[in-house]
């Protein structure tokens, strides 16, 4: 045998003698993370989300505050009108509002690209029990979604502080109000991401999945209120509309609407996850 073969034998021996391969959830989750971080679309989606968030949440406020005095005689008043008495908190809220749609897209891509390319067959051949794969995808979605949302929100907050400080409207990142809204918003985008991934797993193609998810999260809250009579009430229990209460400031609206809204979104998410889990396990791939 050649020298290279002997070397290979030695290397192979050490691999096989080390550990016997077996599936564990931690490993399946790590595999899903490898999948997400090894495609460029993940980074692009995340970058676009953060940029879009910062642009609209912070950018608009900054524009107002630097507009020439003739156009906006009292910037502080305009800002307080639009962003509330504590504009820093308001900016964080806006950030999550702008971010969640793109986070939903990210959540869809976590599962849809795999189904449309047929890669899901290879994945499920390695994990025939299936449910751990879906759970791992939901976990990656939740963590990445929350991270993207938080980065956008914190960046927006910090970017506007210098301007707000100049107008006497500044606040600190560790204010209880700010922390509460950051936590609520992170929970919001996390649940949105999980729900998007769950719903997307029900569809075969990326386009259909995106249509369903964005239809539910964006179109429905816009169109349903138009329905005369009950439109307004139904709109109140749609997942995104209800969930947005999570990043309201408790000092301004009280805890009850926040908790109620959060529970409605949680209910939708649990429902989507249960349905997705049942079908993911049973359907032919």
């Amino acid at each position: 045998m050649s020298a290279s073969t002997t070397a290979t034998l030695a290397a192979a021996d050490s691999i096989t003698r080390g550990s016997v391969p077996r599936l564990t959830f931690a490993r399946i989750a790590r595999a899903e993370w490898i999948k997400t971080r090894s495609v460029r679309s993940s980074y692009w989606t995340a970058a676009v989300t953060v940029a879009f968030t910062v642009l609209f949440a912070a950018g608009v406020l900054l524009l107002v505050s630097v507009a020439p005095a003739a156009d906006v005689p009292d910037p502080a008043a305009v800002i307080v009108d639009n962003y509330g008495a504590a504009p820093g908190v308001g900016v964080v809220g806006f950030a999550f509002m702008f971010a969640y749609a793109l986070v939903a897209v990210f959540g869809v891509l976590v599962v849809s690209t795999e189904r449309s390319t047929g890669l899901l067959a290879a994945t499920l051949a390695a994990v025939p029990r299936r449910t751990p794969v879906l759970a791992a995808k939901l976990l990656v979605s939740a963590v990445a979604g929350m991270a993207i949302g938080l980065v956008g929100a914190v960046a927006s907050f910090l970017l506007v502080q210098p301007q707000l400080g100049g107008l006497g409207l500044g606040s600190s990142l560790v204010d209880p109000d700010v922390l509460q809204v950051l936590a609520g918003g992170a929970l919001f985008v996390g649940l949105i991401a999980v729900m998007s991934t769950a719903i997307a797993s029900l569809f075969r193609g990326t386009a259909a999945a995106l249509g369903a998810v964005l239809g539910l999260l964006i179109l429905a809250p816009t169109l349903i209120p138009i329905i005369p009579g009950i439109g307004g009430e139904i709109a109140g229990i749609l997942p995104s509309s209800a969930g947005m209460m999570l990043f309201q400031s408790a000092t301004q609206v009280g805890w009850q609407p926040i908790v109620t809204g959060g529970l409605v979104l949680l209910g939708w998410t649990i429902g989507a996850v249960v349905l997705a889990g049942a079908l993911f396990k049973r359907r032919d791939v």
Partner: protein
Amino acid sequence: MHSDWDIRAEHPNRREPSIIMIEVEHLTKRFGATTAVDDLSFTVHPGTVTGFLGPNGAGKSTAMRVIAGLARPTSGTTRVNGRPVAEHAAPLAEIGTLLSAGATHPGRTARSHLLALATTHGLGRARVDEVLRLTGMEGVADRRVGSFSMGMGQRLGLAAALLGDPRTIMLDEPINGLDPDGIVWVRHFLRSLAAEGRTVFLSSHLMSEMAQTADHLIVIGRGRLIADAPIEQLLAGVGATRVAVKTPDAQRLAAALAAPDVTVTAVAHDELEVTGLDAAAIASVARDLGVLLHELSTHTASLEEAYLSLTDSAVEYTAVPALAR
């Protein structure tokens, strides 16, 4: 691809000895009104290469997908190495599958694709590098899969199937898109895997390749089992060896050859077809008779003939009307 595939025989078997086979019992799979697989039962044994043959739409891919756990049977069971595949703690170590090689994300590198699969079982970069080397893909490991040719995509699928060093290996059209070099390599590799005591199960349309690679054949048609036998038995079933003889003195030779278990057919005024005697015996008779032979050739039944005669009535999509035999 001068890979040293023979190193695998040296690995100590680190797992307890157990059943190594694929068992299919009364498998039926319906999609709505269509019955793709109909009460199919067979066992694929270790130590030999078993070929899976059947016309298009016969249910081969469906059966393989059920075995791999990708589709639920309407009724019946399948087992890999003694248990339904979902019950194994490390499916990739039990069965390596190549079912649709194009199933990859185009934006990922070959290495990342394999690493993601390997990580589910706790296998790491070292193992990924090893299967890349085995399939001759070290050079393209960090290229995006979307840029791969069909042959490279196929090799990647093979690499993925080998990640867990599986006891059973199941491949659907493994040599699709490979160049002659690659086809020969796959043939040697599969035979060596079988020689190590693994179960090797592959489906293919290429008769000539199947005849050289497989020892045992399972033939299905319209979802039903048509044959399950060693290759020699199937070939024998088609017809005995025929010898074609060309001679100007055909009639005299025919008369001399006639015997109880010999059939002589006059194909043309100077050509005979003889069954029941081998070429040496015929030449001997001709020499004794003083008959000049222009041509003497032995025709053995080919796998293609055996397959065509077996599946004649089970073909869903006929290209040409059945040829007169």
